[in-house]
Every structure is written in C-alpha cells, then in structure tokens.
C-alpha cells in the first residue's frame, strides 16, 4: 500500500519537474520572449516604485534650470519648466501601462460578451451584432478614437473609453468564431441532451473552451493599445498637458526639438515597452500555435 502511494508521489514529482523543465525548455527556445518579460517587469517595478526611485518630484518646477542637458544631478536632463525628465519618465509608466491594460481588459470583455452572444444566439442577434461591429471596424483606429475623444473631451478616462469603443469589435469577431466552432462539438450536444439550461451551457461548457485563444490575442494586442494611447495623448487628446505621460511629454518636447532629451527619453520608454510586449505576444503565439513551430 505504502509502496504504491510512494510510487504515485514520485510520479507526481517527476511530472512536476518535467513540467518545469518543459517551461524552461520552451523559454530557452524563445529568447525574445524572455527579454520581453524582463523588460516589462522592469517598467512595472519602475512605475510601482517611482516615488522611491525618482530623484525629483515629477511636477516640481525649477525655472532657473530649464532645458538643461543630462547631467549627474538630472540623468535625463530637464524640460521646459525645469522638471526632471528621468523622474517624469519613471512616473509616466503609472499612466500609460494601466491605461493600455484597462483598454484591453474592457475591450476584450465587452467584445467577447458581444461575440459570444452573437455566436451562441445566432439568427437576428448574430446579424445585428456583427453588422454593428463591422461599422466600427470601417474606421481606422486612431481616427475613430480621435473623433470619440474630441467629442467626449480630452482626458485620460475618455481616451480609454474611446479606445475601448475602437477595440471591442476585434474581440467580438474572434469570440464569435470560437463559439461557433465549440458549439458544434459533441459535448455541447450532450449537455443539451441532459437538459442543462442554455445559460449554463454558454457559461460553463462553451466559454471556458474559448478563453485561451482570447488570452493569447490580448497579449498580442496590449502593445498596440499602449501605442495608440500614446498617440492620442501625443495629439493632445489624452491626459492634461502638465501630466508626466510619455506621449504628452513628447508632444511638448517637439517645441524644444534641438534639446533632444526632452522627447527622446519618453520616446524610448514607449518604444521599449511596446517592443517588449510584442516580443511576449509573438513568443506566446509561437508556443500556442503549433503550425508556426
């Protein structure tokens, strides 16, 4: 008896190590995925600990030291009001990273719900939801977002709302396709046969089998959301002008074009973060999509 259980536990242990080994193996074949994860973690830590790491307050002005080049005191130089660029870049992650994540979270939730309903209910619901999503997709992302933020008034919350309005149709279409595919499986048929209620079938039988693909899409998408948010903010349709947001800092920095540090450092921040997220997204897609292996 005891020998059986010890055998079982040793099998468990070996299964666990082999899983850890598998993950290590997969990561070893995806060096860019690892780089991406590390860079994203660094930016998140920088944003979380900004108040501890940053040598200056992000809004503290020092007009006598305006647009000074990088120095030992000001690693990233100072901007047009003498604020420390390095500190502002660190604080900037507190706006841009959550904004990008919120856009993807709300966009994917709204889109998936709509898509699931369209695919599950079919008929007129499917037609109406899909035609509406097509109308929203007929606009280029930044143009539609621009129209919505301009209409609602420029601030962070409205920029996020605008991007959710732009983002949901992609998820609706993905989710609808997935639900239609899963719906035709025998186990869904079986659930109907044993008399499970429709809501139970949708929430417990169908949706859990669709979530993995949606999650992969969200990681592929998050860099894009950050990029578009920074673009809106660059155009003045996001956070208020004084706020330490990367896109905003670049827009202000253009007036001090020759003082490159005013726009290059926030630019580097956006670029490195988006590249990192795209490395992660690509890596996960390669892992989950065996056709591309």
């Amino acid at each position, binding site marked *: 008896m005891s020998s059986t259980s010890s055998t079982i536990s040793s099998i468990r242990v070996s299964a666990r190590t082999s899983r850890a080994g598998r993950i290590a193996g997969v990561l070893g074949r995806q060096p860019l995925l690892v780089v991406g994860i590390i860079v994203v973690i660094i930016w998140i830590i920088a944003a979380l600990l900004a108040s501890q790491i940053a040598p200056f307050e992000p809004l503290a002005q020092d007009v006598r030291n305006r647009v000074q080049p990088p120095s030992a005191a000001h690693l990233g130089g100072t901007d047009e009001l003498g604020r420390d660029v390095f500190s502002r870049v660190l604080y900037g992650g507190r706006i841009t990273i959550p904004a990008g994540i919120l856009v993807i979270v709300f966009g994917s939730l709204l889109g998936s719900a709509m898509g699931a309903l369209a695919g599950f209910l079919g008929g007129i619901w499917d037609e109406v939801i899909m035609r509406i999503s097509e109308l929203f997709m007929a606009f280029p*992302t930044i143009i539609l977002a621009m129209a919505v933020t301009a209409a609602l008034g420029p601030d962070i919350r409205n920029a996020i709302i605008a991007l959710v309005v732009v983002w949901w149709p992609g998820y609706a279409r993905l989710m609808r396709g997935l639900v239609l595919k899963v719906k035709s499986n025998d186990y869904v048929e079986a659930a109907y046969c044993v008399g499970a209620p429709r809501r139970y079938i949708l929430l417990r039988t169908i949706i859990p089998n669709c979530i993995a693909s949606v999650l992969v899409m969200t990681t592929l998408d998050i860099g894009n959301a950050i990029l578009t948010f920074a673009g809106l903010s660059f155009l003045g349709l996001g956070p208020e002008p004084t706020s330490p947001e990367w896109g905003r800092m*670049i827009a202000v920095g253009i007036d001090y074009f020759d003082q490159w540090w005013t726009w290059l450092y926030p630019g580097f921040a*956006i*670029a490195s973060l988006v590249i990192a997220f795209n490395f992660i997204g690509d890596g996960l897609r390669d892992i989950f999509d065996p056709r591309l292996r």
Partner: protein
Amino acid sequence: MTFFRYIARRVLFTIPILLGITLVSFLIANAVPADPINVNLPQSQLNNPEIVAAFRAEWGLDKTPVEQYLTYLGNLAQGNLGRSIKTRQPVAEDIARFLPATIELATNATALGIILGVGLGVASAVWRNQWIDFAARTLAVIGVSVPVFVLALIFLSVFHAQLGIAAGPGRLDFTMDEPAMLTGLFTIDSLAAGRLDIFANAVAHLVLPSLVLALYVAGLISRVTRSSMLEVLGMDYMRTARAKGVRESLVVMRHGLSNALIPILTVIGLSYGNLLAGAVLTESIFAWPGIGRYMFRASTSQDFPAIMGVSLLIALIYVVVNLVVDLLYYFVDPRIRAN
C-alpha cells in the same frame, strides 16, 4: 461577364455600408455634450444671443437631430457634403485640396514598404532560424512597435538637423512655388510642368516621412510574408521543382512567392487603406497638409460636416482598396479565376 457582375454586386453592397458610416459618424458627432458653438465662436460673440442663434441657424444646429441627419442625407444624394464650419469651404473642396498630399505620401511609403517588407520576409523564410531570419524578425517587431512620431523625430533630428542630408517638414521648401495644380501630386505636377527643380525638391521632402511610414508597413508585410512563405516552402511542388533541376532563385520566386501572394496582398491593401486614412501622427510632425491633419483639426473643433465628410471618404477608400485587392486575387490565383 461573371467578372463584371461580381464587381457590380460588390459596388451595390457598399451602399448600405456607406449609409451605416454616415449614421455612426453622425451619432458620435451628436451624442456628446460638446457644443460646436463654444469652439467656433469667440468669447465676445458667445454672449450675444443673436449671433449665437444666427450661427445655429446657419449650420442647422437649431433643428432636431433626426432632421439634421435627413437633411445631410438629402444633400449627400446630390453630391453635396456640406460646408466645413472651420474652414468655411465646401467639405468636398477641402478634401480635394488635402487628399493629394496624403495619396502622394501613402503611395510612396507603401511602395517602399513592399520592397523592404517582401524582401525581408522572403529572406527570413528561406534562411529560417538563421541569423538573417532573427535580424529580419527583430527589425519587423521594432518597425511595428516604435511609435511613428518618435521615429519621425529621431529621423528629423539625425538626418535633417544633425547631418543635413534630408529635407525637413513640409511638402516643398518655403522658397519653392507649388507646381500648377493638375493632379495635386507635386512629383507628377512638377514633371508635367517641366520643372525638374520642383520635382527634386518634392522628392527630397518625401524621403523622411515615407521612410518612417515604410518601416511600419515593412514590419507588417514582412511578418505575413514570412509565415505565408514558410507554408508554401514545405509544399510538394517545391520539392518537385527542385528535383527537376530548376534554379533555386526561380524556385523561391516563381514557385514559392507567387503562391504565397494572397495573404501578402491582403495586408498590403489593409495598410495602404490605413495610411490613406490615418497617417495623422506622421502628417502632424512633418507639417504635411494631408487628410489626417484635416480630420484632426475638424474633430478638435467639432466641425461635424468635415468629420462626416472625411469619415465617408475613409470608408469609401477602404471599400475601393478592398475591391482592388479582391480583383488582384483574381489575377494572381487561377483557381479564383476558374470559379
């Protein structure tokens, strides 16, 4: 015959889409608390109820939304897009003035992006998992990840301000006269007028903004090219071609690339449509008087007629680009032709 019926059906299908677009843009423009009066009238006139009322009457703002929408559709049926509140010109004329600049930029950028992107993508697939593949893929990720406005600033700073080897913002130097309006594309108009100096200047000004956009486009195209080529390279007919002793370059290009073209065409069409419609970030940094900047100005001043006009134009561009891509499928793939 079936070919023309197919086109006719596609064109008919676009009508409900365009109607839907007018509805969405009208709803976005109207379902909001913002009032165009606050943006478009100076403070001194806002306090004068007569002027405000006259402004409302002039732009139809005193009518109910349903009436406004129906009036707009009525005018639209007669080819009238209305008058821009901001520029006070007919929207159609504004579009005719701003669109050529965008077309010139988007076309150049896309051409450059295709050359770069297809080249990198093919190389990436042929030398899969070797250093060239790694480099090309990294370049592609960077191309789609670095914000165009950051890349634009870096290029302007390095190639224009520091090295002085590229022209700065704008379509021409300030000292240059615009060529006589023919197509609105400065490169073509200047050649037609026989002004090589203007042509050279226009090309010089096109280089940096085209390059910035082309890197993004090349990133998109090379990723699709790579995966599409990888699929094709594993096919039996590739082995057959090699077994017959066909030259490797011919195998890759004729047997490989021509069979991998369909997804590549799709992404090219998609990105060309996007550049024609939404290059607002690049246009604003390079002071490029294109449709993106026009739309930006319109949307920040609640210029409803202009917003709706541009939205319609953009939807139309998408429809036309998609149609052209579908027609290209028809020529590229004999199987589609047979059906």
